[in-house]
């Protein structure tokens, strides 16, 4: 039950793009066409699903205050929390590079559709943000961390699909609707003429 709750919360309520404004750069840059936006969304979901549980393990067994106790009792006094940025980003960059190599080797078709986005993913704030929020919200177990990763990935995917559809629709329909207005000489024709004159002057 708590899995479903966390899933819906991370997809809709705490949506990466709309609630915390993460991953804005690639969100604005790669949302011109629905097909490419779809590829990037899938890649983000994929990488978030892998890196959030991995970073949960790192956080619980290495980074938290006294987390290294399982290795040796004398290590209990260490607090490596200040290293979390560097370890998280190293995990993400390594995973992205590994995924790129593996996918290239075993599934060239998938590589062709996802491959160009993988380097972009390493610097997507949504990926690092997912791990940092996982840390600051103190998610209690690795299963929940996995759910959180999947949920935020789906949320980001839906968000970029939405904006890409809107942008594509607007770009193709503006010309068509103005042509309709122009040829049928209906209301609004004056605005078309006006707008054309403004543009011509420029």
């Amino acid at each position, binding site marked *: 039950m708590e899995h479903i709750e966390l899933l819906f919360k991370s997809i809709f309520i705490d949506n990466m793009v709309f609630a915390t*404004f993460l991953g804005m750069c690639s969100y604005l840059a790669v949302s011109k066409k629905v097909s490419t936006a779809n590829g990037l969304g899938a890649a983000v979901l994929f990488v978030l699903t892998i890196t959030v549980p991995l970073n949960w393990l790192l956080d619980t067994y290495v980074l938290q205050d006294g987390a290294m106790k399982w290795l040796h009792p004398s290590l209990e006094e260490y607090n490596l929390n*200040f290293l979390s940025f560097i370890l998280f*980003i190293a995990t993400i*960059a390594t995973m992205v*590079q590994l995924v790129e190599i593996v996918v290239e080797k075993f599934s060239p078709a998938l590589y062709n559709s996802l491959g160009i986005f993988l380097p972009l993913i390493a610097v997507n704030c949504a990926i690092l943000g997912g791990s940092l929020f996982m840390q600051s919200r103190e998610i209690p177990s690795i299963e929940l961390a996995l759910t959180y990763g999947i949920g935020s990935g789906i949320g980001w995917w839906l968000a970029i699909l939405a904006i890409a559809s809107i942008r594509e629709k607007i770009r193709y329909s503006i010309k068509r609707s103005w042509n309709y207005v122009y040829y049928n000489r209906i209301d609004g024709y004056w605005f078309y003429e006006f707008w054309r004159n403004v543009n011509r002057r420029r």
Partner: protein
Amino acid sequence: MGLLSKKDSKLILDPLSDNNPITIQVLGICSALAITAELEASVVMSIAVLFVMGAGNVVISLIRNIVPSRIRIIVQLIIIATLVIIVDLVLKAYAYELSKTLSVFVGLIITNCIIMGRFEAFALGNGLWRSFLDGIGNALGYSLILIIVGFFRELLGSGTLWGYPVLGDAIDKTGLYAFGYENNGFMLLSPMALIVVGIIIWIQRSKSTHLIED
């Protein structure tokens, strides 16, 4: 400028106007949206990015011939992360309240696309001094927009500048508030930063028409 040759000063001045990282290249938007509700936070963020970009570009330019291109993204990210940790620790030591306001966004300097973008596009192919100037120039271009947005959002949103009430007291109804002026709380929300940046882009492109695409 006497200190810099003409080519070098172009590296600093270009990103301030015609090649601005935020308004022209549309990079580094996340932090520009998230932390510009107060002027102080935007200034501190700008200084942090200035330090990380200047130092990072120098380091990358020094090691550009040693690092194999297959693993260069990991190396770049680790260098940025190290510099960001320094910034984070300094902020926690000297400005604890502010570091709470900035919260995860200090960490997210790591994934600021401007920094990676300049590493890839400039520092990997240029010498030390030119890379340093390029880093400083781009960070200044970023800071310029951040400070403009922060200024307007804080002034219109909460009626203060750097924490000082410049428009009078909203509760006692003094100054401008005596005439019925109200703060626009909407300016404090992140979407308004997007709109303010959009207005800046609009003004810039209508002033210099060669920037308009199509």
